[in-house]
């Protein structure tokens, strides 16, 4: 059934559009923002990809909270799982043959892409976020293609993995305090190592969180929601 046009929401959207568009047109056509300062500081610490520098270092605290958002959402989705009595009545997943064989080809490829993205992230485009996203998407594809999760990938294991990811991030954040700095203040001597460690960690935990966001919600038994 198609919804009828509703007047109040339409007026609200048009009003929002009018206000935003007028404001945007009124803005000056050049604005430096914080780019000059960010670029200069990224150069000082020797990271070529400034976006990566902002995410992992300058505004690393945002990223810490964001990993928390991902884990929290996984917990929330788990808490909403349909009770077991219902999940027994699932339709048995019958995944398309094409999707299955395609995934078989794609999955290792995606892992390689993820690794590559982390590798280039410090100089060119790419980095933990994108690599993690690709990894997570790969995991979901596997599930969609009807792969049973291997026996060792149990729910408790996903939980442990997510927790270790967050706790390791917290540990890295707290480490500088022992060294006389503030939270997330990497000492220059160890910055490169710590950031690399963090990138790898983030890739895995973003990938794991995204995949488990899907698996947790779609976990009707072992079929992973394949249709």
């Amino acid at each position, binding site marked *: 059934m198609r919804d009828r046009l509703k007047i109040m929401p339409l007026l609200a959207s048009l009003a929002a559009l009018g206000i*935003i568009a007028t404001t945007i047109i009124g803005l000056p056509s050049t604005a430096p923002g914080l780019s000059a300062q960010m670029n200069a500081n990224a150069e000082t610490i020797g990271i070529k990809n400034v*976006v990566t520098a*902002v995410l992992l270092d300058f505004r690393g605290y945002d990223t810490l909270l964001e990993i928390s958002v991902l884990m929290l959402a996984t917990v929330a989705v788990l808490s909403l799982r349909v009770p077991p009595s219902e999940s027994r009545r699932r339709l048995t997943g019958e995944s398309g043959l094409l999707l299955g064989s395609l995934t078989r080809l794609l999955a290792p490829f995606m892992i390689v892409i993820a690794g590559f993205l982390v590798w280039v992230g410090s100089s060119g485009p790419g980095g933990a976020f994108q690599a993690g996203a690709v990894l997570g998407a790969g995991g979901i594809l596997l599930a969609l293609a009807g792969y049973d999760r291997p026996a060792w990938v149990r729910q408790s294991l996903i939980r442990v993995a997510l927790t270790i990811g967050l706790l390791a991030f917290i540990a890295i954040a707290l480490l500088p305090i022992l060294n006389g700095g503030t939270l997330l203040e990497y000492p220059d001597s160890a910055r490169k190592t710590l950031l690399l460690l963090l990138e790898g960690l983030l890739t895995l935990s973003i990938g794991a969180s995204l995949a488990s966001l899907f698996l947790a919600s779609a976990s009707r038994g072992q079929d992973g929601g394949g249709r």
Partner: protein
Amino acid sequence: MSTYLIYSLGGAVIFAIGLYALLARRHLVHKVIGANLMGSGTFLVLIGLGNRAPGGTPDPVPQAMVLTGIVVTVALTALGLAITKRYFSATGLDDLDTDPREGDHP
């Protein structure tokens, strides 16, 4: 008309489309799509306006904010859909306008 204006105004339009869907569509999944579109519109405004830096290299700060925003939005989406599915299992309804107590739903 410069590039940044095209994309940031386009972002405003997409934000408004998403807003309408979130407010007016009944189906919960359509509402979730609407919220996602509001997010995409906002991101376009952010990065579009970040393209006004002199020298042609876009401001990295909006890009970092958008990357964070994309991840947060997918988290919200997952939660919204999980609630939708559970609500459907409990009531057979896929919108909030019908009161589950009244029963006799299509």
